[in-house]
């Protein structure tokens, strides 16, 4: 289509009035700040992509407390999760922030225990984290869209937009969300701080992000990487050939509180045979 000078000016004028001018300008890269390089604004070619990320956890593969601790520590150190302690060295429950942690069976799946169940099963440790629900109540209630769904199924948290109303914490049926009751930087060990990941400010809610920042550069979530062989799987559940899909299709798996309709994306294997 050819365009004379008059037509061009007309369209350019109207589009800048309507605010399209900015998008035209961005297409020519002129509004980029001089310091920004293409990898910071374009997807990394190594990044992992999925239609729907999901996780499978097989607790029978965790043989010792040490195995579990490795997983939680890997996550909390990667994401600069503060570690508030009482003077006697125990965890300070008042300020505690958790992204991934351990709960006994009867707490993880309340209501499914029975009188005759062995103490061993009741107390059996389970790893819990954000379930990245299909239909997350936290996203539904957030008044600022500070927590939102990514197209790949991850429930994200924007700590810069969060106003700290904690409605999401009241809404989450899994207790997966933590609030910064005071400055978290006080409780981050400078020696182990991960300079590549931001620390948070007081007054905002945070939680597991399925390691979105690692997926973007082609790495699996930190917990999966630190877990014993065959204990944690992460992949695209919409892909029939993925490990997570094969396990969920072929074995009995359970999810936390499925009756609430939230559609959790973290599956727990019951049985403990070898997988794919």
């Amino acid at each position: 289509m050819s365009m004379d000078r008059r037509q061009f000016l007309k369209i350019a004028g109207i589009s800048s009035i309507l605010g399209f001018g900015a998008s035209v300008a961005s297409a020519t890269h002129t509004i980029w700040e001089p310091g920004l390089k293409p990898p910071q604004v374009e997807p990394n070619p190594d990044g992992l992509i999925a239609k729907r990320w999901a996780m499978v956890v097989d607790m029978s593969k965790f043989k010792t407390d040490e195995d579990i601790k490795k997983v939680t520590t890997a996550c909390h150190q990667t994401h600069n999760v503060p570690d508030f302690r009482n003077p006697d060295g125990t965890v300070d429950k008042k300020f505690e922030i958790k992204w991934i942690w351990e709960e006994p069976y009867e707490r993880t799946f309340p209501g499914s225990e029975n009188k005759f169940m062995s103490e061993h099963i009741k107390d059996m440790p389970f790893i819990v984290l954000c379930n990245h629900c299909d239909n997350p109540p936290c996203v539904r209630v957030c008044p600022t869209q500070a927590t939102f769904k990514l197209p790949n199924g991850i429930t994200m948290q924007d700590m810069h937009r969060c106003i700290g109303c904690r409605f999401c914490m009241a809404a989450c049926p899994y207790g997966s969300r933590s609030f910064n009751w005071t400055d978290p930087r006080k409780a981050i060990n400078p020696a182990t701080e991960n300079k590549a990941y931001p620390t948070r400010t007081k007054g905002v809610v945070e939680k597991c992000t399925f390691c979105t920042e690692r997926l973007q550069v082609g790495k699996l979530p930190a917990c999966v990487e630190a877990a014993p062989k065959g204990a944690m799987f992460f992949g695209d559940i919409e892909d029939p050939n993925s490990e997570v899909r094969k396990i969920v299709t072929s074995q009995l798996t359970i999810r936390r509180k499925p009756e609430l309709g939230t559609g959790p994306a973290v599956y727990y294997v019951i049985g403990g045979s070898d997988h794919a």
Partner: protein
Amino acid sequence: MLEKAFEGGKKYWAWLFFLGALSAVGVYYYIQQFQFGLGLTGMHRDVSWGLYIGQFTFLVGVAASAVMLVIPYYLHDFKKFGKIVILGEFLAISAVTMCILFIFVDMGQPMRIMNVILHPTPNSVMFWDSVVLSGYLAINALVGWVTLSADRKGVPPPKWIKFFIYLSIPWAVSIHTVTAFLYSGLPARHFWLSAVMAARFLASAFAAGPALLIILALIVRKISKFDPGKEAIQAIGKIVAYAMFANVFLLGLEFFTAFYSGIPGHAASFLYLYVGLEGHSELVPMMWTSTVLAIISLFLLVFPAARKKEGLLAFACLSLFISLWIDKGFGLIIGGFVPNPFEEVHPYWPTMPEALITLGVWAIGFLILSMLYKIAISVRERTAGIEIEH
């Protein structure tokens, strides 16, 4: 008209100074909280809302209760409420202001409050709550001011104000319904997941709000020459009695469903509040105090002989107000969080700074209320004996 708020005797100024001092204490502790974070309160990971949100919820009810005067007066032409309706409207203004302040002091990042407007989110009930509350504040300020100005000049208020008066009726219902929806739509909390929540909120609001109004009207009559009217006060007494019965009935429905169904999750919070759970019974004395006060107030309100004695009526209203304050301003919120999603009991109790910030917000609310009532009293004292026609 505003100048009337600054014309008063020594006692008036001493009262304002007292409230001002309490507010200042609240502001001082709020600055501490602002610097340290909400960790200054007793809240934690498992009970992430506490006294502040409880007060907010309770006061939305007090604000909504103005409609209990507006309906009889404007829809049923109940003339006796002509002089008192302004007290209801001004109470609504101060109550909504307190609600907004309680939300503000509860925010982790108060400087980002405009994000609610910058990123409007229609699927969030909190977004709608902020819309209806600010609207209700505006409507009551407008209606109160316009009708009182007209009274002062001895002329009927302009016709267009009727639209806003009628609008205030469904709007009052909406503020408390939407506030109930904050809770009753959460799959995570058995205690709140109840269809009668909004109805219960309205019933308790229409009991607690008018009860406070009776106490205020009696005080106004004692300290000024403005008499809101004996019959008007008695009529409100009946409204309080009906609403309180409805409230207790609805609470009874909750108990029935929780315990007859036998579903453990539904009963757990009730057990925690009224008998204790897993060795924790921190709130049991408070909840029974609330129960006993509710019974006393109902007993006094239901018998006309008792209700007609203003001293007993005032006592009944005070008992009822405290009872519902405990039930809704404290037990309802904490009960929703205990037990937590892992069915563990982690108790909560407010800290001293948290209590003083709460007291400070109440003081600011009563400061506004006192000044507004001073204006209303001044106008009414001047126009004493003149029939008001709205």
